[in-house]
């Protein structure tokens, strides 16, 4: 498919952070995000119970490389040490690239 390359940044982290992260994304230049509820396992153990403190969310942000780098750096500095968090970036093609 034709399109413009953009970054797709995916973050899996604790649901408790949703409110904070959403504010961070906006101030760091993301034009949007998509969140789904998730469960999982990682270095901090299993996170799959019904109660709030044990839920994960999976966040996706379509953005350019600069914003992706900024968000990744900010999350590393602020949350990585103390919160369950996984972050990775892939390449995708978008239409209407001015939107992201």
């Amino acid at each position: 498919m034709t399109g413009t390359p953009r970054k797709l940044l995916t973050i899996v982290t604790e649901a408790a952070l949703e409110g904070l992260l959403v504010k961070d994304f906006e101030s760091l230049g993301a034009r949007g995000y998509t969140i789904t509820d998730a469960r999982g396992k990682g270095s901090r153990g299993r996170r799959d119970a019904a109660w709030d403190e044990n839920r994960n969310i999976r966040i996706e942000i379509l953005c350019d490389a600069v914003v992706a780098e900024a968000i990744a750096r900010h999350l590393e500095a602020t949350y990585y040490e103390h919160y369950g968090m996984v972050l990775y970036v892939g390449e995708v093609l978008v239409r209407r690239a001015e939107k992201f």
Partner: protein
Amino acid sequence: MSPIDPVLLFFILGLTAGLLRSELRMPAAVYDLVSMLLLLTIGLKGGVELARQPFADLALQAVAVVAMGLLLPLVAFPVLRYLGRLPRADAASIAAHYGSVSVATYAVAVAYFTRQQVPYEAHMPFLLALLEIPAIVVGVLLARGISRDMRIGVVAHEVFLGKSIVLLIGGLFIGWAAGSDGLAPVKPLFFDLFKGVLALFLLEMGIITASQFGSLRKCGPFLLVFGIAMPLFSSVVGMLLGYALGLSPGGVAMLAILAASASYIAVPAAMRISVPQANPTLSLAASLGVTFPFNVLVGIPLYHAMTVRFLGSG
């Protein structure tokens, strides 16, 4: 009458299913619904009574329980820090859990007192709501030395506008404004179903508690001992305070139970945001894995018996 309250049998069923690694699990949306109903019901019940209390009495009790909520974590912290050799943030966070209260424990106590036909001050949920918060403030202050980024606004927002506080205070307010007669049309949902909803909630709490046992094993024996000794100590503080406030025997026992209970909803959420260095596994293993089952299975009748004996002899 069977020797054990049926709602506790649901807790034991959940615990057993969890320990046997059954795939039984309550969907998150159902857990949310069930806890919403419990919090609203407890609030409504307390609110109705609030309107009937003289303001001066309420104010005095409010100040007293807030003081207790500030004091208990200050007692717990040095024990955790020096006896338990826990890092400062963890000691502060666990102290906050034990200074605050558990709504589920209170709900089980309500079921117990109803069964035993022990009357108690019906505005107790007002004190419950008040007790949730002060320990969080103390916990944050105790951990402060290491917290670079305080985000006070965020923490205050999380604490005062978190789901559980809003529903509890909202219920209190609605009960207060509507009065007992006004609430009549919503009673079938909130009041008649209360015990059944509590049973469902405890089923899931049993599953959650079982899932804490694994992390408890890794934490070592200190937390196990602390998780039983601390509520025993707090219950005595609560009992003495209730006595000093001139509460009814049921009210004294209820305050002992509130003091003995450890938060696992409001405080973990607040600590996660305000004291991120604290490891939530430790505090939850203690409050959910030890103190909650201890209180609902052993503690509630124990604190009640202790109060009866104390008041009888007093």
